[in-house]
């Protein structure tokens, strides 16, 4: 689906990505993970066409991403960011349907798709005429997901979609999202910094550090045969405090 070869990206003298080779297989969920500043978001933004690489090749379905095919490709991808990026002056309905209306979809078709997505995302119909600011953070992310899925894209890009939510809501939404992804059969690329979330969603986890890929594989591969001491250090940094706490209670 997406193939990256030798991708480089600099901001002034700082190197954000240095030599990324990656293959995102079709219909699978790949999670990009790593500490802040490791380049995981930059990588996602490159694939969305929000940034351009300084070197290397980015192929989507075999053809390079250029200014001329960018708009067409964007109609085949959905994009969700941390704060949702909803348009505050448009109702939920208009936010979700903006592209369908812009492309001149038939009204019934648009409405049908909207209701379908609302049901899938557990978004009450009564809320469709509300405005983003009248919704809770979790509801806003559901709307953002609905908007991303409206045109039934092949590719779904998610940049820390649950990052701004409080833990309980986050937990609920994680489960729902997983079900949705499972039902969709889409190529999903998600950025997170949470290893549990990565393991929960990802068929493949890509662990990054300082603009480079440290290891690619499932969580068990990462744990059983770490390519670098950093892999275990990163995974355990999030797992150990909880395990220690649990252990201290059971004693």
């Amino acid at each position, binding site marked *: 689906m997406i193939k990256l070869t030798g991708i480089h990206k600099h901001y002034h003298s700082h190197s954000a990505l240095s030599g990324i080779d990656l293959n995102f297989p079709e219909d699978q969920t790949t999670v990009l993970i790593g500490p802040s500043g490791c380049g995981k978001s930059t990588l996602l933004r490159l694939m*969305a*066409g*929000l940034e351009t690489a300084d070197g290397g090749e980015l192929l989507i379905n075999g053809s390079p991403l250029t200014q001329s095919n960018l*708009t067409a490709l*964007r*109609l085949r*991808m959905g*994009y969700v*960011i*941390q*704060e*949702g*990026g*909803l*348009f*505050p*002056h*448009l*109702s939920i309905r208009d936010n979700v349907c*903006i*592209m369908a209306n*812009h492309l001149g979809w038939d009204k019934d078709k648009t409405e049908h798709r909207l209701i379908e997505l609302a049901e899938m995302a557990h978004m009450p119909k009564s809320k469709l005429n509300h*405005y*983003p*600011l*009248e919704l809770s953070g979790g509801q806003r992310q559901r709307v953002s997901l609905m*908007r*991303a899925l409206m045109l039934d894209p092949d590719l779904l890009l998610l940049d820390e979609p649950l990052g701004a939510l409080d833990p309980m809501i986050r937990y609920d939404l994680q489960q729902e999202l997983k079900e949705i992804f499972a039902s969709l059969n889409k190529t999903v690329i998600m950025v997170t910094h949470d290893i549990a979330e990565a393991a929960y969603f990802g068929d493949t986890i890509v662990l990054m550090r300082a603009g480079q890929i440290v290891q690619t594989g499932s969580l068990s591969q990462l744990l059983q045969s770490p390519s670098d001491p950093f892999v275990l250090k990163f995974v355990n940094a999030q797992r150990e405090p909880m395990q220690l706490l649990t252990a201290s209670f059971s004693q």
Partner: protein
Amino acid sequence: MNLKFLNTVILIVACAFASNTLAQVTETEEITVASKKFTESVILGEILSQLIRTKGHHVIHKKELGGTRVLWDALIAGEIDTYVEYTGTLEQELFAGQDVHTDELLNHALAKLDLQKTAPLGFNNTYAIGVNSELGKRLGLESISDLKNHPELIFGFGSEFMNRADGWPGLKQRYQLPQQNVRGLDHDLAYRGLASNSLHVMDLYTTDAEIAYYQIKVLKDDLNYFPEYQAIIVYRSDLKQRAANVVKSLHLLSGTINADRMLTMNARVKLARESESVVAADYLDNTLNVKSTFVSQSLWQQFVVYSYEHLVLVMLSLSAAILLAIPLGIIAAHRPKAGHVILGVTAIIQTIPSLALFVFMIPLLGIGGPPAIIALFLYSLLPIVRNTHAGLSNIAVEIQESATVIGLSNFARLRLIELPLSMPSILAGIKTSAVINIGTATLAALIGAGGYGQPILTGIRLDDTELILLGAVPAAVLALLVQALFETIERLLLPKGLRSLSAAKD
């Protein structure tokens, strides 16, 4: 492309005015008379107007134009046909550096500009220097030379006198005057300054009615510094072909107005508060036995005319500014390099003093409505450009990126997302522009564009507070109304989602 657009705007505005003027020409010859913004000039302008009107022509009297240069340029450009000028002004200022000291040389210099003049009307309205009579008595001031011994005196001169070669600079040199505290101010305001003792010495015109009224002591010009200022009528040479009978009657006025007559007429207007039209008609009746008619408008009719003129100035210039400034602001927000140029140029325009900008327009567009509209249009650009730019630039990055990444085209993004979100900022810019525009438009009367500035000018000239308020109050009310109008538009247009945003903030 922007320049082309501007040209189109100028063309449309100019056409609107041209067609307006053309429509009036068809019946008879249209003759435009002008006057400077002091009472004597307005009375003389009214005499010329009424006299020409009795010859069956359509006459427009452009009253109270701001400064000799404005009238002179307009006369040369054919914007006006005739007005009363003074020989001293021609020699010292308009033909400065040329030898025109004999009648023959002056006629020759005028002919080169396709202009002609009549013989003197009969009075010499030269400059004089006056002091508050009480102060004059106390200090024993009789002649201008006596001022040398009193360096502490405060001088206040009209801005023309202040700067022209035959005014203050020459006077100071000839009499070796030591005074340092010299202010430039409006001639009519100087009388009040003298009366209230905040000024001690001012320039006068010898036929000013106020000399007697304010009991001003006129100092003797003991070194014969001031030149002759004989009143003459200057007119365009083509008037002979266009309306021979007009030229004939203008020459009939020569030698008919002596200094006493002029002083009396000035006093009737300035002190007895009679209208210039009545005084002019009486003069024509008594001296030339010409019965003239004039339409005297009630205060209310005048108010309607001023309002109409002011509204036209504001609406045309402001709507043209909105049409150009919003696209400029959009370009500025999307192309940072072009943005620097656009914001820079519009800011520079804003720093040009408004009166100067009006006068700059005269060589390009003449006097009256079009130059005033273009000047006001230029003034209205900056607030709208700047607020459009700010509104677009302040949209949160995640919203801008979301709009891009869902696949909206640039134009659709602008229309559906960016402009609605920056609307409050754009409207605030338009509101600021409108208020500036309405205020600045009162100065447009100085170049003959009328509006609420006209009664303000006349009111200052005649020391008539009521008349000043007739211009100032409606201008202020108009500014408030326009502000309220845009606030209503904002309420109606503000997207509901943003309204709940402001509600949430409360």
